[in-house]
């Protein structure tokens, strides 16, 4: 049989039950400007932490047949400043610093002496578009061996001729598909695609794949995450 209660008692039961919903109000913290910035930063940080956990060193990004390639002229040119930072190819070197046994300036010929890898992989832009391109270069892991990078180092940061800068976590750097890329579509990199040397990291979003490289640093701590990261994008953004 149903229990009985009088209507005033029922009202107080209802009030109590309503009050139990107050934890929902905590979400209102997101509407307070000062807290909002910190909360969203924490949320993005959690996503990056989860992303790093989800990353599998042995898991390869899908590769595609030549017939799946986006035509070269339909491969977008994206940069934050200029298409062509007017790199002087004759004088160009990659300056290596940080936790390495052999720091110094490396010529393109020295880099190209490492085993060449060619891959048709998907390039995904944070904006939402994607293309399939053909990239050739040398494995970052091979290059790190050449320069004698400290195996305990955790990050690689790069700087670019257009003052762009980026960082990569070591697990991604050592991934077999992470390249120092000097050819696209079997041709030397064009200036607007990052000549003479760019990153091609099919496990990362587009903005992490910096172009027009000039400097590479191996480090134990992350000094600066990257140009877009400093504007508020994800530090890790692995695909």
């Amino acid at each position, binding site marked *: 049989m*149903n*229990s*009985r*209660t*009088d*209507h*005033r008692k*029922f009202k107080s*039961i*209802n*009030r109590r*039950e*309503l009050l*139990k*919903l107050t*934890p*929902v109000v905590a*979400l209102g913290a*997101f509407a307070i400007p000062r807290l909002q910035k910190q*909360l*969203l*930063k*924490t*949320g*993005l940080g*959690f*996503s990056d932490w989860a*992303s790093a956990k*989800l*990353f*599998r060193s042995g*898991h390869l*990004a*899908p590769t595609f047949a030549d017939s799946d390639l*986006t035509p070269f*002229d*339909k*491969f*977008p040119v994206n940069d934050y400043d200029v298409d062509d930072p007017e790199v002087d190819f004759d004088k160009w070197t990659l300056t290596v610093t940080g936790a390495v046994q052999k720091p110094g300036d490396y010529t393109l010929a020295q880099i190209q002496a490492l085993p060449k890898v060619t891959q048709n992989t*998907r390039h*995904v*832009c*944070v*904006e*939402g*578009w*994607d*293309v399939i391109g053909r990239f050739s270069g040398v494995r970052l892991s091979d290059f790190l061996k050449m320069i004698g990078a400290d195996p305990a180092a955790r990050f690689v940061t790069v700087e670019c001729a257009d003052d762009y800068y980026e960082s990569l976590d070591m697990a991604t750097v050592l991934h077999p598909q992470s390249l120092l890329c000097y050819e696209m579509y079997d041709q030397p990199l064009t200036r607007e695609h990052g000549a003479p040397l760019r990153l091609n990291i*099919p*496990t990362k979003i587009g903005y992490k794949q910096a172009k027009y490289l000039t400097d590479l640093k191996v480090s134990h701590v992350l000094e600066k995450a990257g140009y*877009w990261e400093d*504007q*508020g*994008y*994800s530090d890790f953004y*692995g*695909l």
Partner: protein
Amino acid sequence: MATRAIAIENVKTGEVTEAVYEHPLLIRLCHWVNAVSLFVMVGSGFQIFRAFPSFGAKIPQKDLLHWPKAFALGGWLGGALQWHLTFMWIYIATGLLYVGYQVFSGNYKQVLFAPRDIPGVWPMVRHYFFFGPKPPVKETYNPLQKHAYTSAIGLGVLSVLTGFAVWKPVQFSWLAWMMGGFHLARLWHFLVMWAILGFVFGHLVMVVLHGWNNFVSMLTGWKKDPEYVSK
């Protein structure tokens, strides 16, 4: 699960009404947190969509629709991604809590659309959309409601799966592959959102039509004078 019911007596008039405890606290919490996170996910999702409002090629780019900034959250792509990548965890957590609670408490029986509900769907559709007679109300939810709520849970799951295919097309390459690749996964994610918005619209219309007691039950758990309790 037996639903708790009480009789409420008005001591002045002696009038007696029934009330039923329909929504346990955890379900109510999940409902309102989910309402907020869904709002954030859709709003920031539109801002993300604005960065490339197309499902075709980048070159040449053909925009599908120009979504007004006033109906988007985050201010710019980076801001919207922060909202999206923060609230997706809240969205997933409430979803898991809700489904977990329903399964372990047995509460799902009042809302899960089952084969025995199929015969009741058409009479309900006839009543809602074609002025048919109102079928007798026997349970907390009628077959059409069960269908709607069960579908909404399915859409919620799909929104997460398509979202993961877009966010991690390499780590979850099998998921993206099942959806026809990254490119199409992004389209599915968008379409699932519209399906959820369709549910929300219908849901709100029904809340308005079904009146105050029904709305209050999602706040306090108690529904006064439910139709399915015989007098």
